């Protein structure tokens, strides 16, 4: 089998300051823009690639195509008015925003959400995780040339959206977890329909395993692609499945247990090889873990009790001066909200820490060097980044 062998003689030399000596007029190099509209890019961002032959020698990421200034907008809205905005920071998995925001406001206000609300919050977060992974699996397979996987995962994701719809009243932006608790309890017969959905996902995951993970083409392209040295995990702020695939068992659910995770039985999924294939495999197994967690949650969850804490009148809710940080494990890593309150009815500062922020800029720019142009999309997707949480 013919393997791709890079020709190192064509490489640019390094200048004393470490940057590359690239002379675009020499004809040896080409500037290539991938994105912002490109099927292999996860969302609206673009990569400014400098290629030499088929190989990337330099890359600069460009974000900002989705910048809506959420953090700034929140400074002009009351605490309750921020609640409908935060979910928009991450489209495929919006619930972490709702949870982190709500928990941070609760903590600063000295409010404790009822236990039953915590169970429902955990349920929603795990449902969202599966949805996010379904998007990812479709994207990962698609970026390496397997369109059919995306069709399957989109189907089961849609089933999960149905569950979201009947539980929260909306499919994409659920706006269900608000400071103080959650809006409502489970609808009648939800557990049964959820079980059917979970079975369908399990069966799809079997197919995905057969077609994608036991697939010579996928292995050929993904194994060894985008290797992340475990030594880079901390300097580059890498979290979530990307870190776990490197053998670093970082999982906020275990490390800093929140909501009802202490009451659930699970072990973080890890891998060893730290390449695109391992990352995909860690995420595939994480889906199975989430399915298991959802079953545990539905079995253990209390069915009566309050869903909202006593909160002040939201129309003039003032939060005492203080600052806090709330984190949670989303499908891509550590998601967190840093909120500074100045005692008024408006947040002084809300900073959203999305895992894509560290993954898609500094880390990607490093990993992409020496990668074949055809693998850029696959590499990028393997980091599972969502641009809106980079630019907020």
């Amino acid at each position, binding site marked *: 089998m013919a393997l791709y062998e890079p020709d190192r003689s064509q490489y640019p030399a390094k200048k004393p300051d470490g940057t590359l000596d690239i002379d675009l007029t020499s004809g040896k190099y080409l500037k290539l823009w991938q994105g912002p509209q490109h099927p292999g890019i996860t969302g609206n961002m673009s990569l400014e690639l400098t290629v030499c032959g088929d190989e990337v020698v330099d890359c600069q990421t460009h974000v900002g195509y989705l910048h809506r200034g959420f953090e700034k907008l929140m400074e002009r*809205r*009351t605490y*309750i*008015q*921020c*609640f*409908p*905005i935060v979910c928009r920071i991450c489209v495929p998995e919006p619930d972490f925003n709702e949870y982190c925001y709500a928990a941070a406001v609760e903590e600063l206000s000295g409010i404790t959400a009822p236990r039953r609300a915590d169970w429902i919050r955990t349920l929603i977060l795990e449902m969202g995780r599966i949805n996010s992974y379904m998007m990812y699996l479709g994207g990962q397979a698609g970026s390496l040339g397997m369109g*059919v996987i995306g069709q399957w995962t989109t*189907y089961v994701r849609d089933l999960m959206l*149905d569950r979201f*719809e*009947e*539980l*929260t*009243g*909306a499919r994409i*932006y659920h*706006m269900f977890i608000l400071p103080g608790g959650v*809006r*409502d*309890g489970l*609808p009648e017969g939800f557990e049964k329909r959820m079980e059917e959905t979970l079975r369908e996902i399990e069966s799809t995951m079997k*197919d995905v395993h*057969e*077609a994608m993970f*036991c*697939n*010579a*083409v996928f*292995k050929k392209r993904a194994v060894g692609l985008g290797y992340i040295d475990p030594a880079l995990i901390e300097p580059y702020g890498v979290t979530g499945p990307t870190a776990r695939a490197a053998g670093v068992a970082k999982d906020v659910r275990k490390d800093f247990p929140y909501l009802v995770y202490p009451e659930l039985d699970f072990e973080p999924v890890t891998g060893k090889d730290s390449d695109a294939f391992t990352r995909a495999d860690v995420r595939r197994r994480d889906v199975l873990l989430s399915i298991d967690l959802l079953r545990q949650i539905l079995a253990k969850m209390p069915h009566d009790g*309050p*869903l*909202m804490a*006593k*909160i*002040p*009148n*939201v*129309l*003039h809710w003032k939060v005492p001066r203080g600052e806090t940080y709330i984190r949670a494990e989303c499908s891509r890593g550590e998601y967190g909200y840093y909120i500074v309150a100045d005692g008024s009815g408006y947040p002084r500062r809300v900073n959203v820490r999305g895992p894509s922020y560290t993954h898609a800029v500094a880390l990607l720019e490093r990993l992409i060097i020496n990668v074949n142009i055809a693998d850029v999309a696959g590499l990028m997707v393997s980091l599972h980044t969502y641009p809106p949480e980079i630019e907020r």
Partner: protein
Amino acid sequence: MKIRDILSPFTVWKNLFRDPVTINDPVRERPGAPRYRGFHKNDVKKCIGCGTCETICQNGAIDMVPVDGIAAKEGDSGLRPRIDYGRCCWCALCVDVCMTKSLTMSNDYQWIDRDPDAFRFTPGVDKKKWDDAELGYTRPDAHRLTPEERIHMQELGPETRIGSFIEIVKGYSVDEARKEADRCVSCGLCVATCPAHMAIPDYIAAIRDGDYERGLKLLYDTNPLPEVCGRVCTHKCESVCAVKHEGDPIAIRWLKRHIADQVPLDKYRAIVGAAEPATGKKVAVVGAGPAGLSAAYYLARMGHAVEIFEALPAAGGMMRYGIPEYRLPYPDLDKDIAFVKELGVKITLNTRVGKDVTLDDLRKKFDALFISTGLHLGRSTKVPGADHPKVFQSIDLLRRVTLGEDIYCPEQAIVIGGGNVAMDIARTLARIQTKKYGKVGVTLLCLETEDIMPADREEIVESREEGVVLRPGYGPTRIDTDGDRVTGTRFVRCLSVFDENGRFAPRFDQSDEIAISGAMVVESIGQGMDLSYLPDDLQKQIVFERGRPKVDRHFRTSLPWLYAGGDIVQGPDVIHGIANGHAAAVGIDIYLRGKMEQ
């Protein structure tokens, strides 16, 4: 390379024999879930146009707009929310915060129109296909974004309070007041209903901010008797409070009292401000009740010299001589009056106009007159025996109690009447009886059944707690007397109080007669006015309407220099009196300034 990795992908082919999972006709076959947050619905009859939906909308998608066929009225602004779907994000905070639960969402989510402006409409007014949708998001009952329960007011228990005239209600602490003020949604629907149009949402906001100086200043803009009104106002504002629809109305009255209680009198002048420079004009006010004091206060603020003539030995009118001390302690009343005096108002006590000084004298000495002499004549039932000396008028007795007289009070007393004054005398007698005999023996009877008794609900509850026996739904027929003693009264059941036109026309069932024993009867069925101090020639010049002097919107009678207000114009109510006094002061000021320019 494993052979499995070559073969396994071919399992994809099994899907060739699978049915498609897509829905053929999603427009018809896929309704939204029962909780789906689709297009808005609004029950416009239930909606009160309070605008909290607009306030909470973070997208600025809601406008409050007037709607044909819905007029502004008490407790309803007449506005209805119009939603701009170009901005709506379907978060349903408007539904969650809706004060009446009128705003909901349907599960309909499909709507196609070529006109972009069609997506801006008033739910419930502009008819839409989803108006009758049964499914969709409504606020779950337990899901509240505004606290619905009133902060409990500490009060004395019945056993404690019956032994004395100490004030029953303790007033909110700063923390309690802030929590109660927090419940207010600042819609302002109450302002129109308050006779004085007090800036209620603003002074409640001042409590939230802990800024009592701002609060007091706002109170004095429209009401110079906040300590009084904070205790005994009929609080019509609370009856239209938006929060009452899905919870307890805001305790507006107690909050007002809280502000006044927090600020010591010696700070008032610095906060509220001193009077304007003197105009040199003089105004006489007859009667130092709420209307008279209010008129005097605002006239003094405007720089006019004001003198009040009061027949009784202390100022306050009904607030002092009608309302018992357990509802309105005299020191609090005195605090309000003291600030009126501090502004330069002169109060001449023990001076009855018509006897100690004539109205003509006043007319000569002053540039304008304001009469507010109130309703101090009790009405009699005129049943046989009602003229007996042991049959009393509640208003006389209450006055005598305040004056410190030792009134006749046997072990068993009968009160006739179902209003607040009847409750006042019944509960006053109960206190005197407790002191004298150690037990309560008061029976109160009235024509109205309990559900339509004019007295405040809390008066009914509290008087029962104190041991007063209530027998609503009876009318007196005869008072039994035996020489100089009253032995009891006979009553028949009252079938209805009003006729079909709502006029007072009681019907009785003569066969259902009861006899209540008691050595004293107190009649408390209403009061009349005594205008005998007005000379005959003036009486002829003043136009009366249904027994009351007719006034214009500035409370001017048919005589240009004579203004009238308070109970004699508007019927018994403190806050109306205050509002009248203020309006009259504005009118008198215009009149006097007109004269100054001439």
